[in-house]
């Protein structure tokens, strides 16, 4: 015990405080969040949204394509996926993507520039070279793809499914950002999650990606995995920092075996304790800070010179279902099973089952299963939450101007809830701007939840814990 007053950093790591805020909450890739979508919203509603106000829009588009297939099952996974080693499934899926793109292209027109494109999964690289080429060809023939160097065309990579040649192909197809699924470098952890990938392989892929001039290389990792300990994690962090990716997403593993069947293969007793997880979180934040990364918020870190950091400093950072973005368009169109589209006034989600997705498209209609039209209140709260997550601050004045409301009246109840967070040091007021403190960054979800109308009502939805 020493008598020197705590440093700012120590204060960030008040473990009691962290436990206090360790409650279930959404990651706010959208507001309202996906559990609020309902089946009253049909493809006819979607068409109405597109052909109404948006008809003559010349603003850019964001596109997302979901490829649900994986060759192997990773036990931690909570994504919508189909595990198969039978690659003949790709043909049928590509044919339906083609139908879906043609239908969407007819609605949206081919004029709007695609500023952002993301291929996610599942495993996008389940598709082989020829299939990926065909997919990009389908996109290019139905939409206005761009070769602007400022575009953000990214793809999620399972390092076990690619080689240097595949990276050359992806670069040639126009992708300029890669996101590698790393999870953890420790062999025991890799065995426990059924995802073996050796460090040298990741090393050589990272080098190759740099060699091919990918603009930004992002690594996805997870803490709280089975067999993980603060000691094993610190080795992973050392190796991570050595590989020096431009961006890092360090997600919290949420063990919800009752919802995600693949997680049932993970024995609860192999999971680190809540206290260990807090140590891990501290370790991650400190190691990455020492290595020069900037904590963007919501599990994301980036080098100061990366576009993500620059956009955050300039206040131009945006957030969507794929995480943070520097050039998100006002409308995002999702393709493939379970994909979500986000238009300026609505959200819609495709069928989650492959058979229903195919059936609807075979009948010549979009495969939309559910959605939601934003109310004026949703718009206001969405803007508030987005400002907090992306800018780490909230300008009362901007919100009042944009929506013609009196903030202290409109959000009287929320401001009371914020007072407790203020006294816990998560936020502070700088005149009429709410600023998220360094300590508050790891509790961003909690701060956002104050403004989430749907969280204020009792709900049966199970979210993963926020930390």
């Amino acid at each position, binding site marked *: 015990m020493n008598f020197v007053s705590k440093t700012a950093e120590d204060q960030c790591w008040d473990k009691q405080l962290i436990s206090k805020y360790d409650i279930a909450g959404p990651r706010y890739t959208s507001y309202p969040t996906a559990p609020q979508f309902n089946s009253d919203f049909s493809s006819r509603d979607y068409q109405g949204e597109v052909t109404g106000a948006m008809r003559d829009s010349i603003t850019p588009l964001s596109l997302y394509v979901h490829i649900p297939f994986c060759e192997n099952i990773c036990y931690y996974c909570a994504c919508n996926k189909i595990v198969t080693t039978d690659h003949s499934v790709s043909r049928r899926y590509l044919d339906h993507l083609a139908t879906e793109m043609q239908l969407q292209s007819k609605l949206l027109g081919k004029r709007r520039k695609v500023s952002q494109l993301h291929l996610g999964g599942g495993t996008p690289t389940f598709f082989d070279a020829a299939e990926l*080429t065909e997919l990009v060809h389908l996109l290019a023939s139905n939409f206005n*793809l761009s070769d602007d160097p400022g575009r953000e065309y990214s793809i999620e990579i399972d390092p076990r499914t690619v080689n240097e040649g595949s990276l050359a*192909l992806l670069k040639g197809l126009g992708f300029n950002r890669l996101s590698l699924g790393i999870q953890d470098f420790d062999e025991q952890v890799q065995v426990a999650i059924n995802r073996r990938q050796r460090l040298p392989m990741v090393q050589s892929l990272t080098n190759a990606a740099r060699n091919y001039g990918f603009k930004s290389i992002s690594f996805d990792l997870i803490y709280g995995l089975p067999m993980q300990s603060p000691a094993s994690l610190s080795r992973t962090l050392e190796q991570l920092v050595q590989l020096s990716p431009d961006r890092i997403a360090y997600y919290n593993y949420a063990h919800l075996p009752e919802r995600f069947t693949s997680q049932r293969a993970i024995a609860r007793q192999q999971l680190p304790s809540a206290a260990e997880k807090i140590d891990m979180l501290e370790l991650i934040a400190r190691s990455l800070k020492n290595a020069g990364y900037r904590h963007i918020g919501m599990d994301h870190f980036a080098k100061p010179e990366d576009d993500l950091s620059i956009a955050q400093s300039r206040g131009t950072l945006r957030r969507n279902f794929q995480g943070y973005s520097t050039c998100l368009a006002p409308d995002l169109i999702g393709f493939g099973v379970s994909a979500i589209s986000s238009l300026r006034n609505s959200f819609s989600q495709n069928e989650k089952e492959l058979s229903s997705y195919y059936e609807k498209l075979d009948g010549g209609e979009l495969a939309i299963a559910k959605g939601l039209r934003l109310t004026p209140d949703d718009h206001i709260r969405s803007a508030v939450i987005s400002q907090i997550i992306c800018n780490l601050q909230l300008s009362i004045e901007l919100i009042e101007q944009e929506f013609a409301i009196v903030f202290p009246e409109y959000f009287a109840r929320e401001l009371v809830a914020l007072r407790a967070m203020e006294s816990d040091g998560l936020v502070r007021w700088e005149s009429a701007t709410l600023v998220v403190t360094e300590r508050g960054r790891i509790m961003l979800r909690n701060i956002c939840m104050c403004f989430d109308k749907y969280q204020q009502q009792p709900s049966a939805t199970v979210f993963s814990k926020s930390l």
Partner: protein
Amino acid sequence: MIISSAQENNETAQCPHNHNISCGNCRLGSICLPLALGSDEVIKLDEIVQRGKPLQKNEHLYRDGDEFISVYAVRSGTVKAYKITGDGQEQVTGFYFPGEIIGMDGIGMGKYTNSAKALETSAVCEIPFHRLEELSILIPSMQRHFFQLMSQEITTDQQLITLLSKNSAEERVAALLLSISARNARRKLSETSFRLPMSRTDIGNFLGLTVETVSRVISRFNKQGLIAVDSKEVSLLDLPALKAIANVKVDS
């Protein structure tokens, strides 16, 4: 010997410039689109392939920004792809030899992103892309094969571009020679002895080197006994040594 083998060793009936040739009897069938097809299917492919008069030297196949309509298979001669840079300079982006498909750069954008012109008298087969798509519905293996070819093309292009952007003059020249050698091998032509149909200026432009540097490196390789050069005729005398210099896999 890319050109001489094509021009001299064939009978008139099989002359690669002859536009009466069909996919079924084209000697490039084994590396070009018919590769994955049965003989009935080749006939169907043949119906959509258009064979016009050979291109004359410096004649354009398409220009940067033209709408993407067709891909082209080079049947004889050599085609050069290039872009005009922001400051109005020509930047050579590739050389295409018989059996190789050109124009696929257009597929990503719906328009060509390079210009293509003949370096010498060259015959090309035009394959209208929408017809190819129609045909693909009839012949699924055709579609797959086409996208496979295209992905290979994009991959090797990108590998070469990257390699050229990084390395020393020696490495770049060696890499180009090895690339031509590997592509010849794929066409069952000589791996070690060929004619360089392009000028030193074009080579230099493509490699990002001055003409003087290209000539200096070539004569150094010549002196070291790695290659033998007689005007445009080149023999690779020491492949392993050249590979060691290039220090990379040029062709997958």
